[in-house]
């Protein structure tokens, strides 16, 4: 069996069109039920609260703790969203219909990844202001670069998480496997994001954050491509 070929350049618009259709469909489903998004948001807020009460406020200032907390919460609430990503395709074997359709396999991966990305970004859009509120983090002037970091981190998280979600859903230990496989991969993302955020909040010059940002960008680039290529191999063909 030959390896599936990458789509050639002229097919890219078609790839994106199909991916967007699938993403829209996933978002429509999520919007209809809303349970996963709501759970992820509540989970994030709970996490912020627990962390706040779990350490000695006199020893460490809230603002020093904030970056670490934010990105840990981001990881675990992101996992909640990723869990259900391929679950919708398993019920009633909807995945067969997707695979029988005249769309590239990579489009299926991209579509799911886009939907997951929007999901995670949505949770972040609520968690970051909540963090600012609970931890007295002044966002004025930094919220734009912070949003940028958040989006880059979300890309990395989603690139790897979507692929592992596709794999885990076919195994016996789906809920356990997804975090177990993904978390080692999330660590460069979380570390880079947290370190960059910390410097940002401390008002350090941008040049200090740049090495971390470079790792994050590199990770995103490498793993979006690698996971898109790897995705067809996770299909039973």
């Amino acid at each position, binding site marked *: *069996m030959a390896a599936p070929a990458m789509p050639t350049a002229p097919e890219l618009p078609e790839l994106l069109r*199909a991916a967007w*259709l699938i993403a829209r*469909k996933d978002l*429509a*489903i999520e919007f*209809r*039920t809303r349970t996963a998004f709501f759970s992820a948001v509540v989970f994030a807020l709970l996490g912020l609260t627990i962390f706040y009460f779990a350490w000695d406020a006199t020893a460490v200032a809230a603002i020093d703790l904030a970056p670490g907390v934010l990105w840990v919460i981001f990881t675990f609430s992101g996992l909640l969203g990723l869990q259900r990503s391929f679950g*919708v395709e398993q*019920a*009633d*074997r*909807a995945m*067969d*219909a*997707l*695979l*029988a*359709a*005249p*769309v*590239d396999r990579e489009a299926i991966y991209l579509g799911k990844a886009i939907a997951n990305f929007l999901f995670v970004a949505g949770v972040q859009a609520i968690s970051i202001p909540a963090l600012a509120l609970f931890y007295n983090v002044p966002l004025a002037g930094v919220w734009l670069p912070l949003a940028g970091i958040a989006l880059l981190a979300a890309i990395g998280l989603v690139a790897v998480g979507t692929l592992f979600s596709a794999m885990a859903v076919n195994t016996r230990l789906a809920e356990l496997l997804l975090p177990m496989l993904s978390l080692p991969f999330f660590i460069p993302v979380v570390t880079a994001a947290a370190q960059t955020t910390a410097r940002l909040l401390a008002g350090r010059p941008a040049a200090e954050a740049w090495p971390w940002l470079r790792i994050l960008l590199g990770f995103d680039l490498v793993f979006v491509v690698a996971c898109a290529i790897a995705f067809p191999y996770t299909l*039973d*063909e």
Partner: protein
Amino acid sequence: MPGAALESINAKPPVVEAEGLVRAFSGRRAVDGVDFTISAGECLALFGPNGAGKTTLLRLLAGLLAPTAGSCRVGGVSLRAGRAARAEVGLVSHASMLYGALTARENVEFAARMYGVRDATRAAKRALVQMRVADRAEAPVRALSRGLQQRVSIARAIVHEPRLLLCDEPYTGLDEVGSAALTTALAERRDRGAALLLVTHNLNEGLALATHAAIMRRGRFVRHESRIALDPVSYATAYRELVTADA
């Protein structure tokens, strides 16, 4: 080579051609050398005991599996050559392949868009009307009975007017009303010039629609003939013998 060689009655151009199809899983051949052709307006009913390889054959023809050897072409284009050939194929299964949280209309529209149908909304509506389920179009699919879900699933499969319709035990779980509606819809598709491949355990239902019939056993066609040449009673006996021989 199984059974009698077949000449299509109306000599129309073939819609699907399978040549020497083989599919193996970890050394075991689920499909072990299958050749056949279905032309426009023909319906091949495929019978066989459990594990004969019928579902695997269907998945090969739908482009869900790659053959280990041999080829299958739809409309003259190999299924593995790219995604274009899949556009001509519709798939119905005993699983509905629908998204429970979305409405019937949304499900069928999504399928239409995936197949690049222009004016997906109108095509979806047409398909739902044809399957007599348009009045429930705005209901989330999981609220519908199994029979209605199956009808929506068929609407999903035909919305892009495929030249080849593959049906894998579509009667499973349907009541009389649902079965009748399904038979009517499939007959309509066939008469409009589609090619049908109908996998079923139920001889009566299969033969009702068939222009040709085949029995599959251990990955091969052991009988393959036209419906007209066939006597239902002796066929049923022969089929029963074959099935019990495998048990």
